[in-house]
């Protein structure tokens, strides 16, 4: 099952379904990293609201994704982690350290916009 990627202005939005295999995840990672370059996107939102389990592989892939996207000059925000999923994740020892998170899509977009405004300001300031 392929994860749909939506382009909204300067941002890319990927929305997860509940049953996501490792293969789907790796595909998504490649597709997002490629498109960030293609569209010169400023930010990526990965919406995991529908995801029922985040295990070590999914967490590791998301972290790698965020790092790769950052290397291409954009920010990633993971949004919509469910309370139960977050609880199980930290018990398992997964905290997605270094990856920005937000409550939902709306919050994630706000966060990205603020980040790109800041960036714009520093560029103009130079």
């Amino acid at each position, binding site marked *: 099952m392929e994860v749909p990627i939506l382009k909204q202005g300067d941002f890319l939005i990927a929305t997860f379904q509940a049953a996501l295999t490792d293969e789907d995840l790796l595909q998504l990672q490649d597709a997002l990293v490629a498109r960030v370059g293609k569209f010169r996107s400023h930010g990526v939102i990965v919406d995991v609201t529908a995801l029922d*389990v985040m*295990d070590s592989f999914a967490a590791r892939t998301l972290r790698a994704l965020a790092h790769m996207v950052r290397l291409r000059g954009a920010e990633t925000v993971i949004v919509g982690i469910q*309370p139960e999923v977050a609880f199980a994740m930290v*018990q398992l020892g997964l905290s997605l350290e270094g990856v920005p998170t937000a409550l939902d899509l709306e919050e994630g977009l706000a966060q990205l916009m603020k980040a790109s405004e800041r960036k714009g300001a520093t560029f103009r300031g130079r």
Partner: protein
Amino acid sequence: MGDEIRVPIDSDADIVIARQQGRALAERIGFSATDQTIIATAISEVARNIIKFAKRGEIILSTTMKNPERGVVVVARDQGPGIVDIQLALQDGYSTGNGLGMGLPGCKRLMDELEIKSSKGKGTIVTMKKWTT
């Protein structure tokens, strides 16, 4: 009750099937939403270990009773290379695969009981239990 659900683990898609079956079973015997997620997460981890170390194997899900508590039992069984040092495998931060070492120690934290039987070259059986409280 007492019936077994066997999920053959042969590819990464089977990991998803195993954890979905596990969640459904946990829900049927009255686990909270958080516990259902915890059980599904632990199943995902042990199923992943099967793929990573043994290529194939199976997950057997069943229920059990210890009055007045009910429990779910997850058995992950494979005929892979086996675990040489079980104590070491249960230590936080230890991993031979390319993982982060969250696998078995993490599962132990998620579940109430975790037991490993393994012999080199013959395979591994991981048995995990969680009780309703």
